[in-house]
């Protein structure tokens, strides 16, 4: 009876240890996945800097007004665009005359 009791207690202790181990490995996984996600965001942000342009229009008083954003298009997929730079913007911007597209490089923080 006593031996059976000790056996049951030992089993319970083992199960508890297994549960604790599983919990800690889950916690470790959670923290490493959160860490990986943070690194990805920084890396992608580094990668995309310099690709985005600001669309500015000159006002009659000689000042600039901002209209929106756009981006430089990589021409490697379209031979028709090869050689010079292409920029993608919203069509509605073109109703302003003349739109000046203020482009990168802007000063961006990089680490």
């Amino acid at each position, binding site marked *: 009876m006593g031996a059976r009791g000790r056996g049951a207690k030992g089993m319970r202790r083992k199960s508890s240890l297994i549960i604790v181990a599983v919990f800690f490995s889950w916690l470790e996984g959670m923290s490493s996945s959160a860490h990986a996600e943070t690194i990805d*965001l920084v890396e992608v942000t580094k990668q*995309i800097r310099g690709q985005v342009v600001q669309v500015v229009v000159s006002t009659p008083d000689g000042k600039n007004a901002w209209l929106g954003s756009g981006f430089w298009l990589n*021409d490697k997929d379209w031979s028709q665009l090869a050689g010079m730079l292409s920029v993608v913007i*919203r069509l*509605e911007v073109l109703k302003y005359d003349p739109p000046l*597209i203020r482009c990168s490089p802007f000063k961006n923080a990089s680490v």
Partner: protein
Amino acid sequence: MFALQKRISIGANWEPFSSKVVASDVINDVAILKTDESPFGDAPQFAPMKIGNAELTAHFATATLNPDLPKPGQQALLAGYPLGQPYLIVQEGNIAALAFDLPGWPPTNKILVSTFSNHGNSGAPVFDMQGKVIGILEGEDRAQGQDQERTGISVVIPAFFVSELAKTIAP
């Protein structure tokens, strides 16, 4: 189809370069302009400014399109110049849904991204986590009714339409 010559000015002290509209899509409100000469031939050198381990410096790069529609739940980054900010502002969001015939918007496919967007962000690229452009910001969806409250849901034109538009450009 617009066949306009437009001036592109690169930065504050740079010479303006002429460009022309080589493709436009009225339904999806997208245009592709091409410069007549490369404005980055004589790019001025900016002196980098160091702050701790960060460095403020200039960058130029071109974006690659991902014409595949993203999956709801997927992470996305909106990068643009909201409210006239001279610095690139990057915001994180998720793909909330793929929509067709969204009330109040042109009747075409849209990607809905869970992030706020402001004036000046319009036309900004939305990137996937591989750094490819999955869409172009059209605006933020507003609540139906008089108040038109902000929803924090941005409406994005899928990059697929830009890819298809680029294919129409004559060599």
